């Protein structure tokens, strides 16, 4: 060992220091360069598969673009003019907004409640966390099919249980007034597990001293939650609601599997309509106009959320 060490020339030992790349840059510039280099692999894929696709979609929205037709027809803003005069589009937008509002609100409340519950020092805490997270692991196809059966007027267990309360079978998926709440209920059950984990992380990051001090001042459990937990979870709530809005505005699988957009167009959502326009009517240009318009709507709602919740967030 000593022999080996002794044979290493001094120049070789010093190599790591002398071979380091010395650029005539300031420290901050070198740090920025390093950051960009780390980001480069992601950015390459992002530019190819996201930015390029977005630019293509925006470009297609100015054409009467039929996917199988050789040569496409430039129509300027005609697709957007048609879209804003298309009553089915507005039905889809309304349904999507209602679905998103119900689902984001419901998911946030249920996930927060579950997170608070499973961060209490109770026996089997980890088991409960696993169980509550389990639905998130299921595919939308399985969730959709199972909930069709659960909500069935003929054989559904939910209507069966309601019958003990003297309630007649409710046509959850066949009633225009109930179908969106029913899809939302399904989605909340399916999706609250992940935001629950986010909330658990948020709750665990709140210093215990704050609770101890409040308890010394005589605060009860509700006051601890209302004046400490909830305000300090605002960044987490902002994250959960913003990502929830972006995600649920793009709902497709649930109406596609559970209702086929019905009854009538009672559960048409924007992406469902996009699918119909682009892939059943072969109208990629008009479908792209739907997609671009949806992106603008999501951006507006996200900006509103940052204005309403974000300015009161302390990180």
């Amino acid at each position: 060992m000593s022999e080996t060490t002794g044979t290493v020339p001094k120049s070789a030992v010093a190599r790591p220091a002398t071979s380091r790349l010395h650029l005539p840059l300031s420290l901050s510039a070198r740090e920025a360069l390093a950051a960009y280099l780390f980001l480069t692999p992601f950015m390459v894929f992002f530019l190819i598969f996201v930015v390029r696709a977005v630019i293509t979609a925006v470009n297609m929205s100015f054409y009467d673009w039929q996917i199988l037709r050789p040569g496409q027809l430039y129509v300027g803003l005609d697709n957007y003019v048609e879209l804003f005069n298309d009553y089915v589009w507005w039905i889809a937008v309304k349904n999507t907004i209602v679905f998103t509002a119900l689902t984001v609100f419901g998911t946030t409340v249920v996930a927060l409640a579950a997170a608070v519950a499973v961060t209490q020092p109770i026996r089997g805490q980890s088991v409960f966390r696993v169980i509550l997270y389990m639905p998130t692991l299921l595919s939308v196809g399985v969730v959709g099919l199972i909930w069709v059966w659960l909500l069935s007027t003929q054989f559904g267990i939910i209507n069966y249980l309601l019958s003990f309360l003297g309630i007649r079978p409710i046509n959850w998926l066949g009633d225009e007034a109930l179908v969106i709440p029913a899809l939302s209920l399904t989605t909340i059950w399916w999706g609250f597990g992940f935001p629950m984990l986010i909330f658990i992380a948020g709750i665990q990051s709140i210093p215990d001293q704050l609770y101890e001090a409040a308890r010394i001042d005589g605060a009860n459990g509700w006051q601890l939650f209302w004046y400490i937990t909830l305000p300090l979870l605002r960044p987490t709530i902002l994250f959960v609601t913003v990502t929830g809005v972006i995600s649920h505005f793009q709902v497709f699988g649930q109406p596609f599997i559970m209702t086929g957009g019905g009854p009538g167009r009672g559960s048409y959502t924007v992406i469902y309509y996009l699918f119909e326009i682009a892939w059943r009517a072969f109208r990629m240009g008009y479908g792209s106009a739907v997609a671009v318009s949806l992106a603008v709507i999501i951006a507006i709602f996200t900006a509103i959320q940052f204005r309403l919740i974000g300015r009161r967030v302390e990180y």
Partner: protein
Amino acid sequence: MSKRPLFAFLVTILSIFVLSMSVVSIQAQEEEAEPEVLPSPTPAIAELGTGGTHISFWNGLTGSDGVTLNEMLAQFVEENPDISVTTEIVDWNTLYTKLQAAFVAGQPPELILLHASEIAQFASYGVLKDLSSWYSDGGGWFPVDDLSATTYDGMIYEGVPYGIPLDNHGRGLWINTDAFERAGVDPDMEPPTTYEGWVELFQQLTLDVNGNNAASPDFDPENVAQWGFAVGEWPFVNWYSVLHQHGGSMLSEDGTTATVNSPESILALQQFVDLVYTYNVSPPAAGFDTWAGFAAGNVAVLPTGTWFRNFAVLQTDINWKAWPQLQFGDQKATWFGIHTFMVPATLEGEKLEAVERLIQWVSEHQVDWASSGQVPARLSAQAQLDPETYPTNILLGQTFTEYGVLEPKHVAMLELRAAIEPELGAALNGQKSAEEALNDAAERMQQALDRVN
């Protein structure tokens, strides 16, 4: 109760709810993969044979008919060991999506099974091969005179045949003979031939939990134990049949004008709406599983398709028989479709020869296809069917040949269907009147027609 046990109790209740649903769901996922469930699940992808000339074949036969076709193709590759086949089965809507992407990418499968109603759309883009040389009138092997005139006409777009028909599939009525007897109706009666006759029959067959039928003044429509009819399964084809029975049509003869809001069309839809909301003999369209309802003995007369046969045989304990499509109008008419083999325009050489051989083999074995429930397209194959084994195929096949109506040949047929189907649903679920729904449908259809014509 102190707070900690209360938390534990609440979390336990919530967890039990979530766990029970999850277990049901996971169990359902696992059950999907079990091979012994009857009927056999249709494999999404099947590799058949090991021959060097490979055929990729896409179709939408997600029911038991997919299993039947795979069995036939397994026999084919056994007799043709130089050919191997990969069948890929996806639902129809996804198939249209995949096909568009595949054609654009220049990598379509070598063989496709679609419907005759889609020939115009795909052929208009130039992606389908002209198959006129395969028909006898072009010097080929498929005898044109072995098809009904309507079936052969369904293969043609702008004078060129683009498909080889596999079957005629269409609508009929499945009769629960036990339900008839429960209602005191003879199941061997002759089917009515007028709307009034059908309403009277459905009223007799619809029973509330107290045993009163829908014609009785004591009938309780809120507590129905047995429905006479069910309007929910694919309302488009029921309406389309009755539309033609009244002498109406979807489009003008030149294909430039939507005529779905004609008096005949409104009458056809109104008759179905009245079965739900005036006569209380059918549940609303949405939220009622018609097949499960029939299997549970809750539906006496089920309007459905030839593809229901295997479900009725394998998955119900119901004593049943088939009737032809109901008749509400003055004329006989029933919707039917044609599963059709199509070949990409770019296919040439050895693969084209292999595909032709496959289609010819299947065409010559169409009798075997009857076990899927569908009616073989070739009249000679229909004539060979055993009446004991295939009563529904024979009965309904005759109606398709004699008075079957295909959907219009139009390059925007999928879009036209997408325009009208939700409107039919809206009327049948009480969201719009029949006239309002069909006016809205006509407006959207006309927009599409003006754009593409």
